[in-house]
């Protein structure tokens, strides 16, 4: 499942934001968070970027690191100012959200 991107007005480049998000990798699974289907929505309002994402399991010990990595990576982009990362559990993550490549990487596609 690819994330939904809402872009309002001129500001950060949505394609660049998505590309940057796909560079954030879960260090345990070795798959990027976009391919895992963890990113639900990206809202871009001028220079402000808000990401709504989830994790494969509640209580994942990596959640602080992954959310921080998203924040840090997006902050490096031209045209991006404030970055807000929200972790949500509704809807819960399911394997259906993963890309075909991610399924293959996990060995069950």
């Amino acid at each position: 499942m690819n994330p939904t991107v809402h872009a309002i007005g001129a500001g950060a480049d949505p394609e660049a934001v998505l590309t940057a998000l796909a560079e954030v990798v879960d260090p345990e699974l070795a798959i990027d968070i976009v391919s895992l289907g963890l990113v639900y929505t990206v809202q871009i309002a001028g220079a402000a970027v808000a990401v709504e994402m989830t994790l494969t399991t509640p209580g994942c010990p990596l959640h602080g690191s992954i959310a921080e990595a998203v924040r840090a990576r997006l902050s490096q982009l031209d045209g991006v100012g404030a970055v807000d990362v929200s972790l949500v559990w509704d809807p819960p993550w399911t394997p259906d959200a993963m890309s075909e490549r991610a399924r293959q990487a996990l060995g069950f596609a």
Partner: protein
Amino acid sequence: MTVPGGAPRAVLPLASLAVATLALVAAAAGLALDPSVLGGPASAPVLLALLHAVTVGYLALTFAGTLQQLLPVLLVTPLALPWLGPLGLPSLALGAAGVVAGFATGFRPVPLAVGGALASVGLWAVAAQALATYLRARRTRAGRATAAHEPPAVGEGGAEAGPARPPDAAAAGLVTATVYLALTVTLGFLMAAATRLPRLAGTLGFPVQLHLTLGLFGAFLLGIAAAGRKLLAMFVLSKGAPGTRVRILTYLVHGAVVSEMLAAFGGLPSRAVTIALLAAAGTLQLGEVAALLRARLRRRLEPPVFRYLLAHAFLPVAGGLLVAGRSQAAGTALLLGYLVLATSGMQVKIASFLTWQARYAARGAANGAPLLRDMIRPGLEPVITVGLAGGAAAAVVATLTSGSAASVVAAVLLAAGASAQLAQTGVVLLGRHGSRPSPRPRAVPRKETS
């Protein structure tokens, strides 16, 4: 460094894992020096020294160090009384060394007394911290539920699954196991003291079966079941299993402890009841692991995770030997086959994670930080698995047959496995880990521009 749930920096737990692995190597080296102790009497001082190097030095220290990170994560609550960790873990490490020295030198009272006291203080500090953290999480959740005008839901789920849910079975099991661990060491300390104090001996007796039940089952079986419920689910990407099994397993362990207390202090012939309850608890743990594996999304198992799973093959062996009345061989299968093997697998994963948090989290999960699997040396994994599993199997045979050849094989294999475990821990903690190339993005956004 950002650590979820307010867990402390990773230095303390990582140091605990390193010292714990040294204790395992020391135990294996001691066995290599005198393999014949395996077929000898259980009360031999050298054998007791080796046993306590494994239980108090390796298992307890690994467990206590891991709790510093795992409990805040499970409960999504900052660790309560954080000063107790730096007090408890060094005290436990020094205490373990004292206890082992006391046994190894033929029950010398001073190192046994000082070591037992230090280990008890250390473990009660860890238990108090775990209990306080658990109670804090319950209060926080109750407060959230009250604020939301909804009663706390009774049910399972992750710690973050909803603000009104109580801490789950895994967290409750871990805290219970921690208290049992502290009780085990304190009881052992009192038993050692009773050999010198006739009045204490008259009151306490020598409840060695209670000591073993508290430690091997109350602390370690329950601890592995509770921690494994969360850790295994994460490492194989399992969608989880109902918490009923771990909850019932906890009750069964409580029952076994009560049964042993009745036998030890009430003179009741309840040993058969204890064995039945423990066999049921072991069976439930096998069912729990099978359920988590059935619900997994990650088909390929990493070597440390495979080792954790392989350890469960020793559970029915230990149960069968216990029922057959071969309690010393059953204890060997449970301790070396199940507990050490399972702990060694999870230890590698936990050390990788903690080291990644300490060294690479600031760089972020982007920008070329290594993957967790890149932080271990793959060639060491088969040596650890074959060494520890083969050594455990040979040790069981040696205990059953009093055979010198099996004892030597066990000693050699365990020394190889423990040394490889130490080398792997060193690679994870101190090694230079290669950077990961940046991934090629393949995302295609659903774009809604307004």
